[in-house]
């Protein structure tokens, strides 16, 4: 019998993360190939309407774990609930998004179930009803094709790789009784600022700055990012100098991103940086050094003063 496919989704600020929809759609494709059914798992508090919406992305069944204790990501509770659901439903394939939550949750659940887990996947193939994954390693410098052993094959996907396509699923909603289980880490306080800014890895447009920004004033980049409806990123140099937060760092020691458009401003183009953004659809390099390494991986190159060029691009877009 063909093994079912299960997607563990993630809700952020009352909406599914884009990567969760990407995962559900990819899950639909895999289930179709296997001739099996697709189950999406939704955890949260008062998220039934969201859960129901997954039918339009092809979910046959939506398992809803709705409980005040699951309102935000609490690793132990989430791990207990997801482990319970996987044990109960026995899917052959379980897929997460490779987000901060998905990385920790997938690792903990894999450990509990003794399952193989391939993370940061950018492609899947089915061979004799087994999932074969391609995943990035060394911050994107190398792509590995891997076999995942065990009865339950687990994987997480990279953002902005898999397409979102509408599909019709039955979307049978199955609400489960939630048992948060044993917890060995206690939350004292949570300070969350829901920002209007797009999560870097999910952004379609990224404007990044490096040492050439000369200071922590990234206003010109923020204005361009805003005009594009995108996010601001930074090179390791800019983060190490304390100009930008770690959450904005692009590269092998930061985030690996694949937007439609990546604009690198005043970034030299060190290998570890390029590794983290080379899967972008289009790369624009802006640098005052005509020999800057960044140009070697840029589709469009502008030699010049970024403080003149970037505002001019923003102005052009607003025309």
């Amino acid at each position, binding site marked *: 019998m063909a093994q079912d496919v299960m997607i563990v989704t993630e809700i952020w600020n009352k909406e599914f993360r884009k990567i969760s929809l990407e995962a559900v759609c990819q899950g639909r494709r895999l289930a179709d190939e296997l001739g099996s059914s697709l189950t999406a798992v939704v955890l949260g508090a008062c998220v039934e309407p969201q859960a129901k919406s997954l039918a339009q992305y092809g979910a046959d069944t939506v398992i809803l774990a709705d409980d005040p204790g699951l309102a935000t990501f609490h690793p132990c509770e989430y791990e207990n609930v997801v482990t319970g659901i996987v044990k109960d439903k026995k899917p052959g394939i379980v897929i997460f998004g490779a987000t901060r939550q998905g990385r920790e949750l997938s690792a903990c659940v894999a450990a509990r179930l003794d399952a193989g887990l391939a993370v940061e996947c950018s492609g899947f193939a089915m061979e004799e009803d087994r999932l074969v994954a391609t995943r990035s390693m060394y911050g994107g410098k190398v792509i590995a094709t891997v076999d995942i*052993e065990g009865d339950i094959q687990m994987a997480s996907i990279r953002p902005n790789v898999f397409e979102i396509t509408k599909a019709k699923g039955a979307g049978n909603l199955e609400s489960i009784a939630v048992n948060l289980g044993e917890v060995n880490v206690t939350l004292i306080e949570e300070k969350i600022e829901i920002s209007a800014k797009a999560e870097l890895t999910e952004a379609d447009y990224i404007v990044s700055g490096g040492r050439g920004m000369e200071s922590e004033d990234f206003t010109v980049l923020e204005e361009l990012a805003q005009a594009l409806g995108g996010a601001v990123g930074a090179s390791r140099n800019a983060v190490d100098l304390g100009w930008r937060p770690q959450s904005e760092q692009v590269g092998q*020691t930061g985030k690996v991103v694949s937007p439609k458009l990546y604009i690198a401003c005043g970034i030299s183009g060190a*290998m570890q940086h390029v590794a983290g953004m080379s899967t972008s659809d289009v790369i624009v390099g802006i640098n005052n050094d005509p020999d800057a390494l960044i140009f070697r991986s840029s589709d469009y190159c502008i030699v010049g003063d970024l403080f003149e060029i970037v505002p001019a691009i923003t102005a052009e877009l607003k025309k």
Partner: protein
Amino acid sequence: MDIIVLMKQVPDTEAPVEIAESRDRLDTEDLKWTINPYDEFALEEALLIKEDREEVTVTVLSVGPDRVSEAIRVAYAMGVDNAIHVNDEYDDEQFGAADAYTTSKIIARVLEETPHDLIIAGNRGVDDDNYQVPAFIAKMRNLPMINLVTRQKIEGNEIICDQAIDGGTAVVKAALPALITAQKGLNQPRYPAFRAIMKAKKQKMDTKALEEIGFDLNDIGISGAKVKIRTLEFPVERSEGKRIEGGSPAQKAAELVRLLKEEASVI
């Protein structure tokens, strides 16, 4: 109080990597190695706790081939008290492509016999990008895990941590023994002086062979791995495209926007 720091030696992120002829691993011959940057934060934090409290012993634990001894020397020069090196040098076929699961199994076994009140690891390794070893070890040893720690304080038998979460910070606590993972921002790792590294050559490290810690070699390494690499390849290499030359900044900007719309169709 016994602190164990999990350390991995990784290829320098600034250097290019080559794929070995067997295609399932890197060619390590000409690689430059360094301590995983997130493990440097872990080491530093352990040393800061040691400086702050009485009777703290810091032990660094690393799994890997002979070359790992260089990284351990740096850790000694930074100030750790002891080192345990599980050496898997003798069989590259079997251990060149070990995965997060088998590595965690080895570390969990060593921890069975090594006293520990606190384990500090980097939150990720910047080589395999698996994001799994700390969680696997925490589950295998039934320890509470606090991931992505940016600040910690030990009070009595508890550790209280600031943890990076999406959009902010959480303050959480757990009873010791516990495992925490270091996130950038936790501290500024010290750079040991060259002389200290030379002096560290004299420090003895506890080098264990895999059989010594009671493993059937078939259970670990590639044959025990749950994620097995078939092939490695390089992503499609990008090359330089068009230079937008001449004219004023406004003209260059207009030409770029035109190309992005009409040629690349991304905006």
